[in-house]
């Protein structure tokens, strides 16, 4: 089985994509979980579908369409909820649906059948071209650099935004930057699990890591590891059973999440006895 996997270029690319995307996913997912902004992240991801539609309509690599679109969505949702006093969930819900609507219309305008559309919605790690791998790697490096430079600021706004403001930090600007990093992570994840399911892989590895760690850095490292394990296991299972890779990865992650919590419940019960 292993030899088979490495014999094909598409399999090597798939494994590389799984591991590279886990880096962004674990680091940024940690912030998503501790700052409890999963719903915002879901909103940015779905709005990004508009970018895929636009990219498809213009005949460019859809990932290139997603980057500006998801960044704009991140900034707009963030500013609306922070500045314009729009309830955050209303802002998110609006962008969520409008982004998808733009995507659907753009794809409809382009004559002909859109065969790989499904893969953007639900991911298809087996068809990742080398160009996308390079882009994922570049985005990984960018995310690591920004998080390394701003680690103390991001920790402060995640932990206690008010205290961060009192300490003289520009909390709104930092928060918007954080949302932009989430947007870029979503671009990275689109190939692996697709827009609809990206939110699970962004939150589950970090949520399990949180149960085990006592610092944000430790949580990030563990989340990256969990994410890589889930992706690779999911990929392997999907090949073995000949089922959709993105969905299998999500099911592996979801099952692990349930197991982690069940284990915690059991250990609390045993301690209490």
């Amino acid at each position, binding site marked *: 089985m292993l030899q088979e996997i490495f014999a094909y270029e598409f399999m090597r690319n798939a494994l590389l994509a799984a591991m590279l995307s886990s880096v962004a996913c674990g680091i940024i997912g940690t912030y998503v979980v501790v700052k409890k902004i999963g719903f915002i992240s879901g909103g940015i991801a779905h709005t990004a579908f508009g970018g895929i539609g636009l990219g498809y309509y213009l005949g460019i690599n859809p990932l290139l369409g997603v980057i500006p679109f998801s960044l704009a969505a991140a900034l707009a949702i963030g500013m609306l909820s922070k500045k314009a006093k729009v309830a955050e969930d209303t802002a998110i819900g609006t962008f969520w649906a409008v982004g998808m609507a733009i995507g659907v219309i753009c794809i409809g305008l382009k004559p002909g059948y859109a065969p790989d559309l499904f893969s953007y919605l639900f991911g298809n790690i087996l068809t990742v071209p080398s160009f996308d791998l390079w882009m994922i790697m570049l985005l990984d490096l960018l995310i690591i650099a920004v998080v390394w430079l701003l680690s103390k600021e991001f920790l402060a706004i995640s932990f*206690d*935004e008010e*205290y961060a403001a009192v300490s*003289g930090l520009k909390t709104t600007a930092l928060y918007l930057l954080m949302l932009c990093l989430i947007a870029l992570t979503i671009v990275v994840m689109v190939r692996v699990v697709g827009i609809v399911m990206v939110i699970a892989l962004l939150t589950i590895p970090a949520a399990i890591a949180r149960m085990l760690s*006592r610092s944000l850095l430790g949580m990030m490292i563990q989340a990256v590891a969990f994410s890589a394990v889930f992706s690779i296991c999911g990929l392997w299972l999907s090949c073995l059973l000949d089922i959709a890779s993105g969905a299998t990865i999500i099911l592996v992650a979801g099952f692990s999440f349930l197991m982690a919590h069940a284990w915690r419940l059991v250990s609390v019960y045993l301690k209490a006895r």
Partner: protein
Amino acid sequence: MIKPIIHCDRLSVELGGVKVLEGLTLAVCEGDFLGLVGPNGGGKTTLLRVILGLEKHSAGRITVFGGLPGSSPGRIGYVPQRLFFDREFPISVHDLVLMGRLSKKKLFQRYNRVDRERVDEAICTTGLERLIERRIGDLSGGELQRVLIARALAGEPELLLLDEPTASIDPQMKTTIYDLIEKLKESLTIVLVTHDTSLISRYVTKIATLNVTLDMLEPDKTSCREDLTAPVLQNSSFPNH
């Protein structure tokens, strides 16, 4: 001459159209320990938030360290009452206290040896040495309160604002917290918001009740009051905004 650190002149604050503070005139001078008491909703926390620059005032005038509120973050230590943060957050006592150094650092600047020394001092002052590596989720209410005080102290403030530091902790711990504050009084200017009228009268040098309007309970004997009257009158035409 004792300099005023906080100076409010007929300060009014509205939150969502409701007057929370009205016509408040107050001076806190270097070395003061002001106790603010009053009913819930009397505007105690709001006053602290205005001093910190988190809330805007609607009329009157306020200066903190001679400037606008929020313009001198490195000189103020704040111990909030409501715990906005998540107790499950993966952070140790040491790293939480280290966050108190944030106001002394520039963007992108990393914490260094000096920062860690200040953290060790603050942890020593608050008696948290044994808990330094503990995750905050494993602390009791009183321990967490001391961690928050340590965080404020790590920033080497000149002014310490404490919002209900003894809310939701047991009576024995309360005395410990007050003994700690008593120790800090030597070197810091302190504004303390609390419900415990009986307990604080032993410690504070000035006490005021706040129920939308302010009422000084003890006559202000310090000289800074007189110093202030002159500029206050001169600025009486200061535009409301």
